[in-house]
């Protein structure tokens, strides 16, 4: 008997005669905030900031100027660009664009100052942005290695109130990264310190239409 059969046989014998255990009700709330796009946007803003993301608001016309200012303020000379990022987003910056090519090594990406991406959606109640590897987000590694990540969220269409609402819209077949504030650790006397291995600075730009 191989181990697969052995483990399965042990499970079946352990459960012989056990009573049925139906999964039970899902009577928890679908969301904890009223269905009001302005309130949900404010809550996202507040919760992102609470976990030390830097949050900015602009509209479509103001986005290129804002992104240029954020990169300049940081002194970023190079910026990683996912393959499907709308080119006009970075129309205002002088920073050199770096594409994430299949053969780019992690060490090469480590030399880049900033990365700018879109997102799949953002969750207001938890202050979370979710990336799913879409064309405006790129591979998981490009939002991980540079020390500065700027993420653009389109309001209201990319914002959901709650985790259950996010699950409905996400595709489990794609690699997903949920980000709530910048990298942090609480391993030393439970003091929270931002920035260990992921980007130490997370800036979220809410583009309100």
């Amino acid at each position: 008997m191989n181990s697969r059969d052995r483990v399965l046989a042990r499970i079946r014998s352990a459960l012989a005669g056990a009573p049925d255990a139906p999964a039970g009700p899902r009577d928890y709330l679908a969301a904890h905030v009223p269905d009001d796009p302005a309130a949900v946007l404010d809550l996202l803003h507040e919760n992102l900031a609470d976990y030390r993301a830097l949050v900015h608001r602009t509209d479509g016309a103001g986005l290129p100027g804002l992104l240029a200012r954020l990169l300049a303020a940081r002194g970023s000379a190079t910026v990683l660009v996912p393959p499907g990022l709308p080119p006009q987003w970075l129309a205002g910056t002088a920073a050199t664009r770096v594409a994430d090519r299949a053969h780019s090594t992690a060490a090469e990406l480590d030399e880049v100052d900033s990365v700018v991406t879109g997102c799949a959606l953002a969750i207001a109640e938890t202050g979370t942005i979710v990336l799913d590897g879409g064309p405006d987000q790129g591979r998981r590694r490009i939002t991980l290695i540079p020390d500065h990540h700027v993420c653009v969220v389109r309001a209201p269409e990319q914002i959901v109130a709650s985790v259950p609402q996010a699950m409905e819209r996400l595709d489990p077949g794609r690699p997903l990264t949920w980000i709530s504030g910048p990298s942090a650790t609480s391993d030393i006397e439970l003091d929270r310190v931002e920035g260990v291995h992921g980007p130490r600075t997370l800036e979220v730009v809410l583009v309100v239409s």
Partner: protein
Amino acid sequence: MSGTFVGMPAFPAAARDAVHDPTLRATLRHATHTIRDKRARAVAELPDWQRLREAGKRVKDHTLRHLDRYLLQLEESVVLAGGTVHWAADADEANRIVADLVKATGEREVVKVKSMATQEIGLNEALAAEGITAYETDLAELIVQLGHDRPSHILVPAIHRNRGEIRDIFRAEMGAWGRPAPDGLGDSPAELAEAARLHLREKFLRARVGVSGANFMVAETGTLVVLESEGNGRMCLTLPETLISVVGIEKTVPTWRDLEIFLQTLPRSSTAERMNPYTSMWTGTADGDGPSVFHLVLLDNGRTDTLADEVGRQALRCIRCSACLNVCPVYERAGGHAYGSVYPGPIGAILSPQLRGTTSEIDASLPYASSLCGACYEVCPVAIDIPEVLVHLRERVARQGGPGHRVEKAAMKAASWAMDRPAVLAAAERAATRTRRLHLARLPGAGAWTAERELPRIPEKSFRDWWKEREE
């Protein structure tokens, strides 16, 4: 389970040393009280907490009831998504599978995401015996590994170390493992985290094999989920070419939608956050993004024995949040090492004796490492009735006998004899009240119990006498 803890003294002896270490007690008290207060605030934000808790409990019980079916579905989904599935009946088998997979890549080192399952099976030691170095990349695990130490908490394995001790460990040990600590390293958490960042970055950027566990596995889709904070998890899960995940079979949930329950309850219960900074979800392999080879090792190692126990199987609902450790008055004073396992605290007191059996001295002592105050049950996000299982396991230990249990059995036998004979009992009670001034404050021969406790005073009259007078 791991050989790491073999030879540990039983809980009372191990706890005595910890209780008499004032630095350890202060560090633990500060940490557990900080986190428990924050957790209470995070949970209070959700008015439907009890309903989420019940839903999580029911989903887990349902999964366990049909675990064979869901594991087969999981296997199929993972294979469809491009992964390979291995089954390991015990620790040795799991370690051998991982060692062979690493060797097949031609590599001699792996980077690791913090994982309870790989600690439980002693994977690092097993790999070392095969000439493979496993680098722990979680900050707390790094502190434990560099300090030649053992983890003492599920979530914060180095909770027993203060900042000064951590600085000393980094200064003394980092150089032997790679990039040394910066000159003049201070003891602020920010400086220490920066030193860890520099030390580990060179390992991440060259790593070709990553090893992880998982918080959840979704049978329906084959998705694995890891929750973390630092980004070391993302590094290990996405930069290497080969990813090997070792996961206990009880981590399965049936559907994608089930995750919505646990992604609300786990972060708030464990780190007291609305959401942990990073969550990674992957389904097999993805073209050009992340590892091109993915292996899943499904681990039994005592879990099916636990499943066979009708009362004890609820321990398999555990999502390893560690909320029960932080509220436990016994853990707070004894510390994690006293439990002699990678699973300390109340959950460890019921999980370890079930995974390993109750034949060793330490495992037989663990069901008694509790005051049965019930705080662990109150905070558990999947409603594991830890006190119920503790009492159940005490019965098991008592049945197998031992010196303490022989005295207890004799006392109980005498008591039941007297209680079956009302006249004898009445006479004994009367005799006791009349001689109450002569009684000792401590009972000789039962030192383990009475050394720390006063005996209750005998009342002036027996209940029967009081009742009789009241009737008159």
